[in-house]
């Protein structure tokens, strides 16, 4: 554990006087805050390097004013500040790569106000997502934001990284929900800005991942808790047909809460033995869940032995298996699974689901009934909590969520698959669909000979994948953010417009203390 720098000693003393008992420099805390859920960091952990970049100190403010005081003190001493929610980020965005002070916002977790007339909630940044949703439900509302990390991510983290929930097609991404934002900039100055102003300063901060300031509270739109949820499965012969069906649905102005189209390989693995059981039965595992349970030493897999062997082969011969899958799977089984869900007012939801069924059948879909939809709904958070076992088993798994307009969607799908296939076992689903385009969520897995080899393979996969994304003209992230992992691709993502981001940085963080080294700045 590196010793504290002299500047930090002085700052820590000042913070301790300011917030007695809420500042820590102990090794356990410094190790605990040295990483997030970036898979590359987890490879390091399995290789015996749990905390390559520990912070010098961790502080737990309880108010916006305290956050302001912390940032002022840090700016005076030139000490880096890293805002921290719950550490569920998967891009290394909260790694204190230049040391400094981690500002953990979890003690700022109040729901300040729920305005039932205006349909808004004003909430502090540090509240855990699940707690927020639970409390809104108790009052008859929903935020409509359900990222798979909901149990281990915070409201502020969602805002900082432009998060998307699984129902973004109906409720929007988090940036669509913001009505008002309070933040502390890199000079310690406090701002409250209304969304929709000209210019819309709130949209500068949302997604800035702590590089421009710390979001301490926000007012967001909330909706009436749905009376009815109707989720069904549909089968499409090919990815292209499924994508076309989704596009038609959305361009007919229907608003499903959720659409998820699994590609042939993902659908193949997604289907459990209860595939054709329309009445429910055993919960269906997701592809990734099955994959993870296979790798876990104590895991229980519900898939057949031959599927296990195929996946094991995929780890050592990814190119061959990917090619076999894309060649034969379209003919070997039932094509691609599409989950479509509607929710809300009973009458509207039933009408929308009926209208959607007509559209989906017209587009060549086959109705699989409510079973697959309900199973997905019940088990949609199950995957995220099993990842560490994969790393324990010497392999790694990660996801790449990219997006583009409909005209380039299949080109993007093919380009990323082609780029990553030689290096990793890869599958995908299409979700977060909009009238003008859609996101693709690639899942890839591979194994290295030791941590160093795994890290190299991991980097190679990301480089190849994101290079393909930028060649197509798509965006490198739909909702996971940039952090450290995608930072090298920011110049290509934004081109000359990066200068505008640098200008915002210079204005809001003139001392350069806010989460330095991230986002390609």
């Amino acid at each position: 554990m590196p010793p504290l720098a002299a500047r930090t000693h002085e700052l820590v003393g000042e913070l301790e006087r300011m917030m007695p008992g809420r500042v820590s420099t102990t090794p356990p805390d410094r190790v605990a805050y040295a990483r997030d859920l970036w898979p590359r960091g987890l490879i390091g952990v399995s290789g015996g390097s749990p905390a390559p970049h520990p912070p010098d100190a961790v502080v737990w403010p309880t108010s916006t004013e305290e956050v302001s005081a912390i940032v002022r003190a840090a700016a005076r001493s030139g000490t880096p500040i890293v805002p921290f929610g719950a550490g569920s980020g998967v891009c290394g965005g909260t790694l204190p790569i230049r040391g400094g002070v981690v500002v953990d916002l979890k003690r700022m977790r109040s729901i300040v106000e729920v305005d039932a007339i205006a349909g808004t909630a004003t909430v502090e940044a540090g509240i855990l997502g699940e707690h927020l949703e639970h409390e809104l439900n108790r009052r008859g509302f929903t935020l409509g934001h359900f990222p798979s990390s909901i149990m281990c991510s915070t409201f502020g983290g969602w805002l900082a990284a432009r998060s998307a929930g699984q129902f973004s097609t109906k409720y929007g991404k988090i940036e669509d929900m913001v009505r008002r934002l309070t933040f502390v900039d890199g000079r310690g100055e406090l701002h409250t800005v209304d969304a929709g102003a000209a210019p819309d300063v709130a949209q500068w901060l949302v997604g800035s991942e702590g590089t421009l300031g710390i979001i301490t509270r926000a007012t967001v739109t909330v909706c009436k808790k749905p009376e009815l949820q109707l989720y069904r499965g549909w089968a499409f012969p090919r990815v292209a047909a499924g994508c076309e069906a989704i596009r038609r649905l959305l361009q007919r102005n229907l608003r499903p809460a959720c659409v998820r189209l699994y590609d042939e390989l993902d659908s193949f693995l997604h289907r459990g033995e209860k595939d054709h059981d329309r009445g429910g039965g055993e919960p269906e595992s997701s592809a990734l869940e099955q994959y993870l349970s296979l790798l876990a030493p104590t895991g229980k897999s519900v898939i057949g032995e031959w599927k296990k062997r195929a996946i094991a082969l995929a780890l050592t011969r990814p190119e061959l298996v990917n090619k076999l899958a894309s060649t034969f799977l379209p003919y070997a089984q039932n094509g691609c699974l599409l989950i479509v869900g509607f929710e809300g007012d009973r009458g509207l939801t039933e009408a929308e689901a009926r209208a959607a069924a007509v559209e989906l059948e017209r587009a060549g879909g086959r109705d699989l009934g409510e079973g697959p939809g309900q199973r997905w709904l019940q088990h949609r958070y199950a995957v995220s909590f099993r990842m560490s076992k994969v790393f324990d088993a010497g392999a790694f798994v990660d996801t790449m969520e990219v997006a583009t307009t409909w005209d380039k969607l299949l080109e993007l799908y093919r380009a990323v698959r082609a780029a990553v296939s030689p290096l990793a076992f890869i599958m995908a689903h299409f979700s977060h669909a909009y009238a003008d385009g859609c996101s693709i969520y690639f899942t890839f897995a591979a194994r290295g000979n030791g941590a160093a080899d795994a890290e190299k393979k991991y980097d190679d996969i990301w480089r190849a994948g994101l290079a393909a994304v930028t060649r197509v003209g798509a965006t490198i992230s739909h909702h996971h953010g940039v952090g450290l992992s995608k930072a090298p691709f920011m110049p290509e993502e934004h081109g000359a417009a990066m200068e505008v981001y640098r200008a915002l940085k210079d204005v809001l963080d003139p001392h350069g203390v806010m989460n330095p080294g991230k986002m390609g700045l």
Partner: protein
Amino acid sequence: MSGDAPFWSDRLVHAVGAANVSTHAGRARVRPGAPAELCDVVRIAGEVGARVGVGAAAGDAIDVDFARMCNVLHLDETSLVVTAQAGITFDALERALGERGLVLGAVPSWARGRTLGALLAAPRPSEASPRLGRFVQTCVGIQALLPDGTEIATRLAPRKATGPDLMHAIVGSRGALGLITAATIRVQRRQDVQQSAAFAHPTLPQALSAARAILVRGGRPVDLSVSAAGVLALDVDGPEAFAAAEVALAAEVARAHGGEPVPHAPPPRLMSRPHERGVALERVDGEVLAPALVGDAIRVVGWHVAGACVVDSARAPAADPPAPPATAALLAALKKRLDPQDRFVDWPARDHDRVAH
């Protein structure tokens, strides 16, 4: 070109062509035909120490007229987005889209004769469609010129998580931080079923409560308005079953608030009143409505309940709302950073009409 032309006007002629430069009383007006020409104008301005502005705001600066940059650059009918140059008017854009069975949808009727660039440079709190939101929310990308002559284009994707939405540093900056040269806008396919309905309520507050209740229940009509006489009107479209369900929801809610169906009521038609008078806007929180704001035709609009505002179409156009002091200081600092020589002139909204012609 008149005799009192600035000594550097020859250079402008070289950049954009003689037919596209006019001078009067020592001022120059240019009509660039492409971003590269505008870039040359900005570079020349920098070299001779002149400022660049739009319309009357230009003052002694070089006055840029976007009238020649009025083309549709790309229509992507698969993704339903159109990229057009800043100088195109909404009427012209709507005509081009109409030939392909498409509509803009979210443009307030008062803005129809104005230009795309003008509305994005200085958007006002404006009418919005409950379904589509405000016009700015349908803009998914811009191309712009920064004061140092750098051309930027934001990446086109349905949604991104790659840092701040950089478009919003230029959109709404009234030209002071960058000149928008083109923008990409979401468009709508004209639906086969379009229905209108109206319900008369005994009082205005009952009609407003009904409008709010429709939004709370999840209704998202293309347009929703309430008249001072308490008539709630809405437009819906989409698949027949769904359009019918939206009307049924509105009818149920209206009944619960004392409303009765109005046969053959004129539809609200946000999209189909091309030359309606300008409007004044006031925000209304929840159900509180200040009587002074009530005019002849009030439109209760908003992307969501929280964004509802009331439009009084009998009043004169609203002035630009001043930026709050904290935001104004940020904007001033950003201006200093991006435009240290103060080359781009702030462009007040009142020049919109001037730009459109």
